């Protein structure tokens, strides 16, 4: 897919992409996000893309998720900052060593959570989430049924996402 090709697909599907961003609840920001998507494919065109429209959807989807993360983290920083100026100084600005300890503890918890899934589910999750292997390929690779892969992945993603959300609550 040449650069102009992807851009042409973008222009032809502008309304569909806008509808997608609106469905995400982007509201007034939908146009902004669409602009951001355009700039992104202009600035760093991908290599050959098998399915350009799917690629655009996926990139748009990632933008929404990143924006969501940025917003919630900004809210959290704001709150931490106001707490630190309202007399609880030091809590939000942990020294580096302490932050490193927290990071290490989180890493250990991630490892424990993976272990708790059992060997099979843990392997399937790593294969899918870290290595980016399709579910049907994992099933073929391990000689198990697709439905086993699906149910293991549900449990694994749920466990790991819940764990990550608990880190955010701290």
């Amino acid at each position, binding site marked *: 897919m040449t650069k102009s090709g992807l851009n042409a697909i973008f222009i032809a599907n502008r309304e569909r992409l806008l509808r997608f961003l609106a469905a995400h609840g982007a509201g007034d920001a939908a146009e902004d996000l669409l602009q951001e998507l355009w700039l992104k494919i202009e600035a760093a065109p991908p290599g050959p893309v098998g399915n350009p429209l799917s690629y655009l959807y996926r990139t748009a989807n990632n933008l929404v998720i990143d924006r969501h993360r940025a917003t919630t983290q900004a809210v959290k920083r704001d709150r931490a900052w106001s707490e630190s100026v309202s007399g609880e100084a030091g809590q939000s600005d942990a020294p580096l060593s302490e932050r490193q300890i927290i990071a290490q503890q989180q890493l250990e918890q991630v490892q424990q959570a993976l272990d708790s899934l059992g060997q099979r589910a843990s392997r399937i999750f790593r294969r899918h989430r870290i290595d980016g292997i399709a579910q049907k390929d994992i099933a073929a690779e391990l000689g198990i049924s697709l439905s086993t892969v699906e149910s293991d992945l549900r449990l694994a993603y749920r466990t790991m996402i*819940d764990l990550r959300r608990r880190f955010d609550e701290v």
Partner: protein
Amino acid sequence: MAQEPAMTEQTALDWIIRQRDPGFDDWGAFVLWLEADPAHADAYHAMAAADKGLDDLLTSLPTVQEMTAMPEPARLNRRAWIGGALAASIVAAVSLYLYVPRSDPWAVETAPGVRRTVTLADGSNIALNGGTRVMLDHANPRTASLERGEAMFTISHDPDHPFEVQAGETRLVDIGTAFNVLRDNGQIDIAVSEGAVLYNPGREAVRIDAGHRLHADDKTGTYMLDDIPGSTVAGWRQGRLVYDGQSLERVAADLSRYYGINIAVTPAIAGQGFRGVLSLPPKEKIETLAPILNVNMRQDAMGWILTPR
């Protein structure tokens, strides 16, 4: 098209998993799902952001050794199966020869609506909810089999002799433990309040730690793990049942077991989820539960029936 929050979360999770497949191309259906209810996007964003937040943590993990094929038992080829069976029968024959297996079973059973606690020789105790049958064995005091119903096991731990509970096809091994097991209608529900339990060692081998609950299909072994506050495990002992989105069908089954009367749900709302705490009133005042469950309760010849409000 509003869904229950737990249902929405599950669907959001399924989208996240599917979208991580490199060939995912079902964006049209995803748009329709997002558009069906604004709550869908909220649930999706919260979970997708957490999922994305795992990136750094996961890439910092040490890498695992080479993947090897892990065939399911059902897929073992015939020769392997025959070999295994042969080996097993030799082991069985040899062990029969070495010692005569002793077994001295006894049963503890409760009628619906009756609760009872038994204390074992080693100080462990088993609290039985109504309508429950547990098989024990004098010759093997560290085993129990939940034939039906619900029981809370508080086990005095002995690392050399772990306590084992069998419930249908499900096997549980304690790792220093207090845990509740419910066996109902082919479903197994294990909730751990202290220590940990190993679920189906040798198969799924899932460790259930305190504060967690595992819900499994006894036949297929398909399971889900989630959180449960330790203090709410086996709440039936204090007449308090805590729910986090379980179906009304399940709530009705719990109430039937507790009160010893038949409590049914009309199919229209059987799958409806309930979230909240039931402080169980005396049997004569059972209908005071109706507003909390957001249903109408009607008495008939069979017992009680929950109907839409």
